[in-house]
């Protein structure tokens, strides 16, 4: 399955990853290798295990079995805050930002933590990394409303703010869990173009789940298809499109 990748080019390697909730196998024996610089989509019907796989990689869920290596380092047993420090950033399926803080404070807090200055109780934080935060917000086109509470922003803007928070650490691997969920079609395209552009500029490896097939086929370099907790296919977009099995379980019988 998939072509062999040279060892030093592997960003993320997953081996025999398994997670069950009670009797339900959410993720079962998943093996996966993601090359440096890949833009990888994980697709599959609802309940296929995409989000569970995400949460296993990022340490939000504990694993029943299996290993995760990131750039040669075993991160299987690390808590999320340490995995973040290894160079992995993520967004969540349900928009996760600091609602009662302003977008500026959201990004500033991420910067303070990233630079390990978040234990300082003596200096006022207001002006620390202010300019850097504004620059990052500008990159995701959120310059206009940086001082209003994030809770009153539109859904799309909140999603972009979360992207900004995730970009703060200049990660090597960016994981996006349904980055365009709940957006209008126009907004979806813009957001994914933004992600792809930033990925290109920074040489990021991107791993994302998505339901919108237009988005998936537009930006991904490779696609992994999951069904009932297992990987059933992996390949380039055109290979996925042509695969019978994928058509049957995912795109519909006549897809």
């Amino acid at each position: 399955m998939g072509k062999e990748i040279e060892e030093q080019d592997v960003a993320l390697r997953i081996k025999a990853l398994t997670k069950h909730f009670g009797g339900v196998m959410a993720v079962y024996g998943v093996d996966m290798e993601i090359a440096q610089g890949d833009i990888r989509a994980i697709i599959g019907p609802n309940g296929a295990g995409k989000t569970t796989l995400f949460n296993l990689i990022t340490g939000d869920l504990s694993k029943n079995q299996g290993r995760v290596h990131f750039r040669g380092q075993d991160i299987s047993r690390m808590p999320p805050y340490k995995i973040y420090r290894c160079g992995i950033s993520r967004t969540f399926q349900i928009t996760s930002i600091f609602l009662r803080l302003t977008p500026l404070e959201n990004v500033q807090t991420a910067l303070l933590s990233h630079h390990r200055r978040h234990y300082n109780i003596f200096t006022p934080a207001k002006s620390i990394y202010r300019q850097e935060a504004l620059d990052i917000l500008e990159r995701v086109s959120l310059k206009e409303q940086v001082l209003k509470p994030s809770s009153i922003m539109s859904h799309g803007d909140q999603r972009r703010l979360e992207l900004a928070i995730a970009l703060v650490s200049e990660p090597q691997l960016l994981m996006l869990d349904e980055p365009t969920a709940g957006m209008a079609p126009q907004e979806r395209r813009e957001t994914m173009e933004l992600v792809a552009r930033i990925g290109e500029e920074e040489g990021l490896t991107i791993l994302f789940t998505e339901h919108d097939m237009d988005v998936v086929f537009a930006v991904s370099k490779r696609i992994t298809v999951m069904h009932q907790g297992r990987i059933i296919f992996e390949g380039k977009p055109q290979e996925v499109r042509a695969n019978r099995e994928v058509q049957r379980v995912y795109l519909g019988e006549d897809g």
Partner: protein
Amino acid sequence: MQQKKHKAGHLILLIIILLTVLLLLPHIIPFFFILVATEIAILALFAAAFNLLLGSGGMLSFGHAAYFALGAYGSALLFKKAGVPMVLTVAAGPLFAAAGALLFGFFIVRLTTVYFAMLSLAFAQIVYTIIFKWYGFTGGDNGLLGIWPTSFLKSPVAYYYFTMAVVGLSVLALYAIINSPFGYALKAIRENPRRARFIGVNVKRHQHMAFVLSGFFSGIAGSLFAFFNGSVFPDYAFFNKSFEPLIVVIMGGTQFFLGPLVGAVGYKLLETFISGRWPVYWPLFMGSIVITVILVSPQGFMGFLERLLWGRKLRSRT
């Protein structure tokens, strides 16, 4: 920029007026109210320390009396048993509270919501029981008497100034903490712990640190109260005492830095007037006030003021 300077000017003017009022207050008001004002300041500090957890950290403690009592007993025991000078014990007593918060907090922050609250209450009741039963050391339910301030702070006016100075500095420190990088990360945890973890924050350690800081400042309040009262009793650690700062911050508004301070003034004045006139009915009034605040203005007095004056969001938030 011009507007910013303008605002800063207003703020400085306001602080000068406030300081002048506090300075002149003991010479204007009747003697009895000097005591009330001192008590208000102590309660305000206790509530502000408590609100570092609730307002900024989103952690509800039902057991903060433990740290108030540890500060009070720490100072009182050093003063009585070790003969440490009074002013030094006010500095050292709160360290006992911080040590208690370090120990208990380690377990408490591992839980969330109602479990967090119940475990904090359980630890406080343990502290209460130890103080209550250990006659040989803590005096049990007889308490420790004769905990009076050193000679130059003996007069109520002098102790008023001393309290105001200590409380003022402590409240400034709490303000600095809330607006520091540490405070930003604490608020981030309050808003979204999952997200906070994935910006690299060690959530439990951060909460633990906040718990210790909150315990330390609660301990300062307890220590000040010991010398104000001239004695310490196990009641300081009882759960009634734990609910006091909670009621104060609900009255004042948990999401405003001034909430605990304003709440303390309101709470203590009401208590003084009502229990002076109808001693038995204070809990009835208190209950009615809490119900009214929660129904009419869940953001407390400060939230009410904000809507009344500005109709928009204020900046001085926790």
